[in-house]
C-alpha cells in the first residue's frame, strides 16, 4: 500500500515543478512555520525577500556566531525569525529561549566558478509540539529550494580547491546533532557565542527581553591566533563536537563531554580511554594525551575522512585544517 502522505508529497512536488519561478511573497508565513507540516518549498515560508540574494524578509534577522561550526568550508548565512510582537528570552550564557512561532534559518553556500551557489538551507521551526528540523536543497537555477527529507549529495569544489561529494543531511540526521534528551533543540544561538553588539541591538529593538549575563564570550574564530590556545580550542570543541558529546545527546554513551562549561579534565578527554571508538582509536590509548596531539585519539579522528574513524561523523567531507591546528596547539601546550 502506498501511503497517502507519499501521494500528497508527489503531487505537491509536481505542482511546484510547473511553476516557473518562486513567487514574491508578502513577508513570512507564520502558518507555514507553526502548522505547515512538511512544507515542500522553502519559498512557502517567505523568509527571504530575495532568495538567491539571501535578502531577508521583514522580521528575519541575520546573525553570526563568534565560533562557527565547520561545514566543509561552506559560507553560512544565518537568520532568526520572530513573529510580530514576539520576544526571545535570555537564559544566562546559554541558548536564547525562542518562542513558538520562531524559526532559525541557515543557508550553506559555496563559490563555484566565481559565483556564489546556494546549496542548501536548513530550517528549525518552533512549533507547539517542539522544534522541527527540515533540510532544503537549492535547484541549479537558484530559484527555489525543495525539501529533501532523505538528504542528498551534491558535487562541490570547496574554498580549499577540493572536489567533494557534499552531504545535505536527511531529516533524521538533523536530529542526530540537534537532539538532546529526546527533543530537537537549536544549537547555535547561545548567548556566549553571539556578539554583545548584536545582543544589545536585539534588546534595543525589543526582540530580546534583556541583555544575557555572559561571563566569557566564545572567541571570534578569525582572531583565533591571538586567543589563548585553551579558549580557542575549547570554543571549537564546544561548537563542533559538544552537540553530540554531552550527556543526553547522540554520543552520550562515549562518556566524553566537550561542552565549554565542562571543567573536569577526564570528562573532556584528558587521560580518558575510549569506549566504543573501534578502529577510530588509531592505535592510541587516550582521547587526549597532554603535550602529545600526535598521540591523542581526538586529533586522530579530526584528521581522518574515513567512515568509522572520522569525527564529526556527519557534515564532514574535508578536513578542517584551521580547527585541527587550534586543537593541536592547545593539546601540545597542556
Amino acid at each position, binding site marked *: 500500500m502506498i501511503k497517502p502522505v507519499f501521494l500528497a508529497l508527489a503531487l505537491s512536488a509536481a505542482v511546484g515543478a510547473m511553476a516557473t519561478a518562486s513567487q514574491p511573497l508578502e513577508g513570512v508565513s507564520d502558518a507555514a512555520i507553526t502548522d505547515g507540516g512538511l512544507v515542500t518549498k522553502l519559498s512557502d515560508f517567505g523568509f527571504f525577500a530575495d532568495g538567491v540574494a539571501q535578502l531577508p524578509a521583514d522580521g528575519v534577522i541575520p546573525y553570526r556566531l563568534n565560533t562557527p561550526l565547520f561545514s566543509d568550508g561552506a559560507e553560512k548565512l544565518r537568520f532568526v525569525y520572530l513573529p510580530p510582537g514576539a520576544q526571545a528570552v535570555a537564559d544566562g550564557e546559554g541558548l536564547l529561549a525562542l518562542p513558538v512561532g520562531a524559526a532559525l534559518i541557515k543557508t550553506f553556500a559555496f563559490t563555484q566558478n566565481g559565483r556564489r551557489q546556494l546549496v542548501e538551507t536548513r530550517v528549525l521551526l518552533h512549533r507547539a509540539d517542539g522544534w522541527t528540523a527540515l533540510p532544503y536543497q537549492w535547484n541549479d537555477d537558484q530559484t527555489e529550494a525543495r525539501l529533501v*527529507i532523505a538528504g542528498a549529495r551534491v558535487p562541490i569544489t570547496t574554498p580549499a580547491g577540493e572536489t567533494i561529494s557534499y552531504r545535505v543531511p536527511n531529516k533524521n540526521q538533523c536530529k542526530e546533532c540537534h537532539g538532546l534528551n529526546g527533543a530537537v533543540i537549536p544549537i547555535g544561538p547561545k548567548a556566549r557565542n553571539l556578539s554583545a553588539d548584536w545582543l544589545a541591538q536585539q534588546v534595543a529593538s525589543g526582540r530580546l527581553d534583556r541583555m544575557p549575563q555572559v561571563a566569557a564570550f566564545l572567541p571570534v574564530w578569525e582572531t583565533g591566533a591571538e586567543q589563548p590556545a585553551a579558549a580557542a580550542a575549547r570554543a571549537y570543541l564546544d561548537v563542533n563536537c559538544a552537540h553530540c558529546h554531552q550527556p543526553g545527546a547522540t554520543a552520550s554513551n562515549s562518556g566524553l563531554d566537550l561542552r565549554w562549561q565542562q571543567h573536569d579534565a577526564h570528562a573532556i578527554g584528558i587521560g580518558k580511554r575510549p569506549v566504543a571508538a*573501534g*578502529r577510530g*582509536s*588509531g592505535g592510541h590509548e587516550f582521547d587526549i594525551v597532554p603535550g602529545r596531539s600526535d598521540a591523542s585519539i581526538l586529533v586522530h579522528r579530526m584528521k581522518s575522512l574515513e*567512515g*568509522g574513524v572520522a569525527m564529526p*561523523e556527519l557534515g*564532514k567531507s574535508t578536513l578542517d585544517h584551521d580547527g585541527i591546528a587550534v586543537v593541536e596547539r592547545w593539546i601540545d601546550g597542556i
Partner: protein
Amino acid sequence: MTKLNVACWTGACWTGACWTGACWTGACVKRSCLKGNHLGGASLSTTCLTLLGAVLATGLIAEPAAAGVVEIAAGEGAQERLQEALIMAQPGDEIVLGAGRFALSDGLSLDVDSVTLRGAGMDASILDFTSQQGAGEGLLVTSDFVTLRDFALENPKGDGVKSKGADAIIYHRVRVTWTNGPAATNGAYGIYPVESTGVLIDGAKVSGASDAGIYVGQSRAITVRNSIAEANVAGIEIENSRDALVEGNVATRNTGGILVFDLPNLPVMGGGNVILRNNLVVANDEPNFAPPGNIVANVRRGTGILIMANDSVLVEGNILKDNPTAHVMVVAYTQEYQDTRYNPYARNVVVRENTFGRGGDDPQIDGAQQLLAAFGGALPPVMWDGLAEGETGLTADAGVAGWSLNLKAVGQGLAAAQPGPMAVAAPTFQFDDATVGAPQQMEARLSR
C-alpha cells in the same frame, strides 16, 4: 512524537482514540517522563520509572490499528527511497525490503517508534554499504519498540546497526558481515544496542567486526540467543549492562568468544546479573586484530568466555572446546582508573557444570611453555586471577578444574603471578532466571 505525548497525558488516550494508536507503544510514557513535562515536573521521578517499568513489564504494547506496509525494492535510488520511508513511517508501520542488493552511499536511520523493518531473509535482502561515504554506522535506530528482521548489512564503514536509547528493540535474523574477513579496517561493532532497556537479539549472525560482533552496552533486560558470532575480535560482549541472558549462541573463530565486563567512567555503571547458558564456544583462535587503544585489543587470542569486573555472572551448560588460552577466564580490571563508582573486581561469578573439551593448550600468556609443562601439556579450563572482594569472588561446582594466578592486588601484572591450582568454594550464590533477559512480552512480536 511530542504531539502524541501531549495527547496521551491530557486525556485523549482515555477517550479511546489513542487505544487504536501508538500511546501504548510506550513512547508517550518514556519520552514525556524524560522531559518531565507531564508528570508534575521532576524528570525521571519514581512515578515515571514505575510507569515505564509497567509498560515494559505488563506488555501493554498494543499493535497500532491500520498499520501501513511500505515496500522498498532494490535498485536505483535505494538510498533516498529507503531513507524516506524510514522517516515518513508512522508507528505500527512495516517497511518491507525486497530481495536483492541495496547499494547505499550513506548511513540510514530510523527515529519512529513501533516500526518493523523486514527483509526477505538474511541472505536475500542485503543492505550493501561497501560504497558508504558518510555516517558512523550502517543503520541507526533511536526510537522504541522497533523490530529489525530478515535482512543483512554488508561492509558498513563504521558500526553495523546501532540502536541507542531504543527500548524494547528486536534484532531477529539480522546478519552483519564484513565480507573480507577479519581485518583491523573493518567497522567496530556489528549489532550495537546501547543505553536501552529491553533488547532481544535472536538468530543474528555477525562476522568480521574489529571490536565486537554483538555488543550490548549500558543497557538492561537483554537476551542474546540462537545467534552466530564468527571471526570477530569479541564474539558477543555484554558491557556495563544488567540482567542479561546469553543462551544458545555459537561463538567461534573469534579472538574471544563471549565477554562480560564493566568499564569505568561510563554514564551507566554497575553491570551484572548475567547468565551465560548452553552456548557453543568453540575454536576462538583468531589473532587479535582490534586496533590498540580499545579494551578488546587486550583480549588474548584463544579466550572462550571472559568475565571481568562484573557482579553476578553464571556460566553453565556451555560447551567449550579448542579455545587455546582459556575456556573461562575470570579476572579483575587491570588498567588504572579514576572513578569512585567503579568496582574492578569480578564478584559472585559462578561456574557450574559445563562441557570442557580440549583447550588451554596454546595459551597466549607469558611463560606459556613453563605453564604447560607444569600443568601437563594443557592449562585447566578455568583461569582465575585469584582476586576477590571479600567473600564475593569465584565459586565453582566440584569437579570444575582451574588454575589461579594468585595475584594479591588489583592492577598487578602477570609478572606478579604465582600460578597454582584453583581452589574455590562450591557455589551458594543464587541466580533467578526471572530477573534476566528481555521482557517476555517482546516474544509475541517475533511471530508476526
